[in-house]
């Protein structure tokens, strides 16, 4: 792949990405959206983020896509602590501790 091609790809992806990110912010401005649209938008975060990470949890790239107990347990601990404490930092801590503890334990047995 030539240098010029690589630069062209970077610029094209950059412009396209900006247009996607700016899209509604740019066009709508302060115009108000209808109720039913707002009702759907309220669930954008919980509709995208869980689906974004679910495959990474179940089929981690680090193990070549094989389900991995430490990573799965760390994910469960993170969501559980986050749900019950409503504290993001506590959730990250719980996930990290679970991950490293189990990686270390499974490393000992393996």
């Amino acid at each position, binding site marked *: 792949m030539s240098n010029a091609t690589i630069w062209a790809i970077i610029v094209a*992806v950059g412009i396209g990405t900006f247009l996607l990110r700016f899209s509604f912010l740019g066009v709508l401005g*302060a115009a108000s959206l209808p109720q039913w649209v707002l009702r759907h938008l309220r669930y954008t975060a919980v509709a995208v983020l869980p689906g974004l990470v679910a495959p990474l949890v179940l089929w981690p790239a680090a193990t070549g896509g094989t389900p991995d107990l430490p990573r799965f347990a760390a994910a469960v601990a993170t969501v559980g602590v986050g749900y019950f404490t409503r504290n993001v*930092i506590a959730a990250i801590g719980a996930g990290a501790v679970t991950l490293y503890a189990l990686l270390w334990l499974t490393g000992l047995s393996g």
Partner: protein
Amino acid sequence: MARTKPKNTYLMGLRDGLPFLLVAGPFGLLFGVVAAEAGLTAPQALAFSTVVFAGAAQFAALQLMVENAPVLIIVATALAVNLRMAMYSAWLAPWLGAAPLWQRALAGYLNVDQSFACSAVRFEQYPDWTVPQRLGFFFGVVSPIAPAWVAMTALGLWLGEGIPDWLALDFAMPICFLALIGPMMRTAAHLAAAFTSVALALLLAGVPYNLGLLVAALVAMMVGAQVELWQARRAEI
């Protein structure tokens, strides 16, 4: 004289965004490593991280470049991976829409998973924030992440393969997003949307160009909205 000072939302955003250095750091580092392996020059790798500024799409594009895929396919795939950001843009529009165009353009450039996810928590928690306060928060979240993303790409280019596997940095990103998801589960509608999203994303994982995630997200949003309607109706009876 007790005058209530307007809350410094920029600092609050900064604080909310800091844990995401754990994500942007390793992820950017990894991009630098992979870019060097793929044969990109340092200016190209850094331009990628600055101009595109989107981890998953950068990795997807790089992967296809290594495979020598047609340029059109590479660009289309990277943009498909970023399509979810148009949804973020739609979510942000009612909250930030009254800001001047240049500020909205800047917010557009910095509209990423992290700034959106943190805003999704705080804007609804503090609905009486003014538009400048919301923008302050939004820019606060990305202030540590954006420079770190580019700097860590540079470090990755330089370090190359020298990062030990036992650090398991691959899992920093999932953990940070999972940590945000827990506190978002405020109602049965949020739970229903999240479970739909997970189930469909896994079922459709084989669909090319990340389109499975988009379908999963759209259906999950409809499920959330429907459950909200049912609950509202039941409350009326």
